[in-house]
């Protein structure tokens, strides 16, 4: 608060002082005081008033600066009223009480909704685990009674399983840091497992996948990495063109990075849409033509990659190809 705004706050008091001084000056003059003496009194009074005003202002100013500093240091700003020292002046005390009540109500509200959110997430996770039992049951049943019908059922089950998995990972997105285990992961094994999990789905879609040149290993979390690869490969199948789908998975060490690239010969992405594919809920023109796109898959990939320290990049030419590149840092520190 600047001094001028402080003074303008005290306008009424100053005005009363000024009017009172005028009135008393007039009175003293009537009693026969000299103009010079009255002038002297004025100077004294002005000094006194100004001194008081300035002293008060400095006090206020110091107090405010202190409170601001406390606020700046706070991580959770809504705890301000609990942290800062209690005021001495009565007016400030009342303000303080009001603020405290307001913030208390707010924190209650926030923790209430946090609790609901957590409960909801726990319920979803629980539900997913329950879902896995019948899915596993169906898969085993189909595997034990192989026919063209059960193959189709398996394909559908794989799709259910993918969707369920996606919900689980979405629910866990907020707590990736609590749930990962960095190990040396062989890219070949990782990709192979993803392909094996979606075997029926991929075979039914007549996909041909080349993984022969994959050889590098990276340091990452196997489970999350598989999830990311899964999304990428499913996208390739979803957005295939009329040509037979061929996916090339290769890896290459480049300086401080190992790059895994997944290239398909599908629909590709328009240049104008390339920058937005990682946005939540973004469905490009390919997705709008009835492919039940949700705009969530690549968003999840991007978020996960950020948390795992992988940088993800997409290159594409519409109608020709799409390449998703994952760059894994190859730090010397990671070598055990």
């Amino acid at each position, binding site marked *: 608060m600047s001094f001028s705004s402080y003074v303008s706050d005290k306008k009424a008091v100053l005005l009363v002082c000024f009017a009172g001084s005028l009135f008393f000056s007039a009175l003293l003059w009537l009693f026969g005081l000299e103009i010079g003496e009255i002038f002297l009194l004025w100077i004294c009074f002005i000094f006194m008033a100004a001194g008081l005003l300035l002293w008060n202002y400095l006090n206020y100013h110091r107090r405010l600066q202190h409170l601001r500093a406390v606020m700046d240091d706070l991580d959770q700003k809504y705890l301000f009223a609990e942290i800062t020292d209690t005021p001495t002046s009565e007016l400030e005390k009342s303000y303080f009480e009001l603020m405290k009540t307001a913030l208390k109500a707010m924190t209650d509200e926030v923790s209430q909704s946090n609790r609901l959110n957590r409960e909801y997430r726990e319920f979803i996770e629980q539900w997913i*685990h329950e879902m896995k039992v019948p899915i596993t*049951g169906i898969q085993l049943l189909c595997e*034990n009674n192989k026919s*063209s019908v059960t193959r189709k059922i398996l394909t559908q089950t794989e799709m259910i399983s993918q969707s369920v998995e996606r919900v689980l990972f979405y629910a866990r997105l907020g707590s990736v840091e609590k749930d990962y285990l960095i190990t040396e992961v062989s890219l070949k094994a990782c990709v192979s497992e993803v392909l*094996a999990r979606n075997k029926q789905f*991929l075979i039914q879609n007549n996909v041909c996948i080349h993984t022969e040149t994959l050889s590098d290993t990276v340091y990452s979390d196997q489970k999350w990495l598989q999830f990311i690869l899964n999304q990428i490969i499913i996208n390739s199948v979803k957005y295939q063109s009329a040509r037979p789908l061929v996916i090339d998975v290769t890896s290459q060490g480049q300086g401080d990075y190992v790059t895994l690239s997944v290239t398909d010969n599908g629909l590709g992405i328009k240049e104008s849409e390339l920058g937005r594919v990682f946005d939540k809920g973004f469905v490009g023109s390919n997705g709008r033509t009835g492919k039940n796109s949700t705009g969530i898959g690549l968003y999840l990939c991007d978020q996960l990659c950020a948390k795992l320290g992988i940088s993800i990049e997409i290159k594409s030419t519409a109608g020709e190809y799409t390449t998703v590149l994952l760059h894994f840092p190859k730090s010397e520190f990671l070598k055990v």
Partner: protein
Amino acid sequence: MNKILIVEDEKLIQEELETLLSNAGFTVMCVTDFENTLTQIKAEMPDLILLDINLPGQNGYSLCALIRQFSDVPILFITGRSTTMDELQALTLGGDDFISKPYNIPILLARINALLKRGQVARQPAYLEYNGFTLNPIAGTLAADGKEIELTKTELKIMYCLFEHPGEIVPRLDLVEYLWDNEIHIDDNTLSVNIMRIREKLRSLGKGDLIQTKRGMGYKI
């Protein structure tokens, strides 16, 4: 023959796992009375235990720790839980591997085999013979009448699958699936191309008609 014990309380999954593993050539037993799991394990002495984590009464973790007190039998956890903590806990308590539901069947079988093979020599037949042909899966060659042809990895796997089912029709889809299980990810058309190439190579042996096409069904030797 390896003996596998299934500790799983979900009835349907237990039964289907039993069928699956019996078909894969294992002797399978299931725990039915979860009060006395340990006694049963001691009595049966299986070669491998498939252990679920959510069990009535005692959970899989503590069961695993108890088994480790008297046996080093390989334990493969199969479970619906899949967080890193679960995995870590399973492995630190003495589990040998961890696979989460819903699991892919070839992966499950591969892991079971991997655990059983530890210390044992892998048993892949050195040669497969049929009707005067000798397939050498290690060298990747096919020989007949003293002449030999070299096969690529894909061609070799196709021939291996056909040689394992002599006289039977192998449906195309089965072949593709077999290849996928062996990490060769090709589609139907590429399979046809590969069969064509094999036939060409066979023709150089003078045996172009080894592989017969059964239209709409598959291939047969």
